[in-house]
């Protein structure tokens, strides 16, 4: 294979249904969504030559390759950092294609994260907190009763909310908007179940006085896969090609995933600022070049902090920006138009990246008009997906 620079594109996306109890193995979910992504693209799964997933995915590459009948795998890798680094899968797939090392890179993430184990509950083993997953200092939280992602996320969001006078009610506007999108998305767990600001305010405290239940993403069973190939090849496949205009990762000094309390200024997400800077430099785009955004929404404050990091509004203005209706379908920046991880499902950010692809293709259920570029951000990594 030649080693000249090759433009990369997303040719296929696939998913299982999103549920609370899939009733089958995680490997089966992985196989089903991977096959769906290949069929969507019109690529024979046996021709996959690169495979990427998260370090914490429980399925084995070989196990999945054996299901798909992959003939000759050339490259496998995994990304640490959980959902915060979700877009790093696209980054790595892009780099593999750019370098001419792979032709058909499969990205997958499949989990029974509701029926088999629960990220939202107290941990029953400490395996995920050891080396290799990007979660540097979670061990230091456990003896103090900070045992869940919501508790870690609240400690991160609290200083920001305090500094800019953002109340929990202010956060509610993010949830209400995303549940409105989910309500018209038949694939969403919360299809036809919109909420009001009062519903948000009446939901129980998860982390008092910062996060209520409706500020937190769901726990879900399901799988999502994305197939990355060259732009040239994607043009000959079944779907309109979605060019990966840029993708990158950013982990500034003293930043870590979620227990992220050691960098200088807790009112910002330095990793998102770094991702934004690198992504805009790579592509030459600016915030106003984006017609939509898919922003990792494990918890509502993180949406506001990323909006600020990517320059869609000023520092501390995220809540006012959202309250103005900016994230709505006719707003300044339609965001998480599938309902996000709050409204559609929590497949670790992968389902949001798939929505970015649909928006560029023009096939989303909540389709934004005249989309050329979509920002996909998971905080520590991001990508800009563009019309080819």
């Amino acid at each position: 294979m030649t080693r000249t620079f090759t433009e990369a594109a997303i040719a296929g996306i696939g998913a299982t249904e999103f549920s609370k109890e899939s009733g089958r193995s995680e490997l089966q979910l992985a196989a089903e969504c991977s096959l769906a992504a290949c069929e969507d693209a019109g690529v024979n799964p046996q021709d996959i030559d690169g495979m990427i997933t998260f370090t914490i995915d429980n399925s084995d590459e070989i196990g999945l390759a054996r299901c798909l009948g992959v003939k000759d795998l050339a490259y496998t890798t995994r990304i640490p950092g959980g959902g915060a680094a979700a877009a790093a899968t696209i980054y790595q797939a892009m780099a593999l294609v750019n370098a001419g090392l792979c032709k058909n890179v499969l990205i997958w993430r499949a989990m029974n994260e509701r029926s088999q184990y629960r990220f939202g509950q107290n941990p029953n083993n400490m395996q995920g907190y050891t080396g290799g997953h990007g979660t540097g200092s979670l061990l230091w939280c456990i003896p103090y009763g900070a045992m869940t992602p919501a508790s870690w996320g609240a400690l991160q969001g609290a200083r920001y909310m305090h500094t800019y006078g953002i109340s929990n009610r202010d956060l509610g506007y993010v949830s209400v908007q995303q549940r409105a999108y989910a309500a018209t998305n038949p694939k969403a767990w919360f299809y036809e179940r919109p909420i009001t600001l009062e519903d948000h305010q009446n939901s129980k405290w998860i982390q008092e006085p910062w996060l209520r239940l409706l500020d937190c993403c769901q726990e879900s069973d399901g799988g999502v896969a994305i197939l990355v190939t060259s732009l040239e090849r994607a043009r000959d496949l079944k779907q309109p090609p979605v060019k990966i205009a840029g993708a990158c990762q950013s982990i500034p000094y003293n930043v870590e995933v979620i227990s992220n309390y050691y960098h200088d200024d807790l009112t910002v997400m330095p990793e998102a600022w770094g991702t934004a800077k690198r992504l805009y430099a790579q592509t030459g785009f600016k915030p106003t070049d984006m017609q939509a955004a898919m922003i990792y929404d494990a918890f509502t404050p993180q949406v506001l902090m990323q909006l600020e990091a990517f320059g869609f509004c000023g520092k501390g203005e995220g809540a006012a920006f959202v309250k103005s209706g900016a994230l709505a379908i006719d707003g300044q920046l339609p965001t998480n138009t599938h309902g996000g991880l709050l409204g559609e499902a929590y497949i670790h950010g992968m389902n949001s990246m798939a929505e970015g692809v649909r928006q560029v293709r023009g096939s989303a259920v909540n389709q934004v008009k005249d989309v050329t570029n979509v920002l996909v951000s998971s905080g520590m990594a991001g990508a800009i997906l563009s019309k080819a």
Partner: protein
Amino acid sequence: MSTPTDTAPKPTRIAPIVTPDAKSFWAAADEERFVGQKCGDCGRFTFPPRPMCPHCHSLKREEVELSGYGTVHSWTVPRHPHPFGFREAPVVAVIQLDEGIRMVSNVVGVAPEDMKMDMAVEVGFEPTMNNHKVPVFKPRAQ
């Protein structure tokens, strides 16, 4: 600081998970000493503990007694799920220590409704399961 007696309830707090690079921190805590890692060459403090100084790359680490004073930089009360090992929901906080480093801990002796950002705190110790102790923080004596 509680003194265990025959009638005192057994501690239910989870013991710290001790990694090789943090061994001296937790060993000192067991003796109710609050120590931090200071670089033996450039004199700067780092947290969490690590084998190498990120500023000058020295491997000479010194465990020095910290003032135990700091402020609450961030805090939350985990309501749901109820954290394992706590009878009442604790106040979890990020403490900004006077030495310029931060750590996660608890604020004890303050009701959640009385919690304030930047309140001055000082170190104390609480027992855990398996006869260990962890540093916690209480409002600083005036």
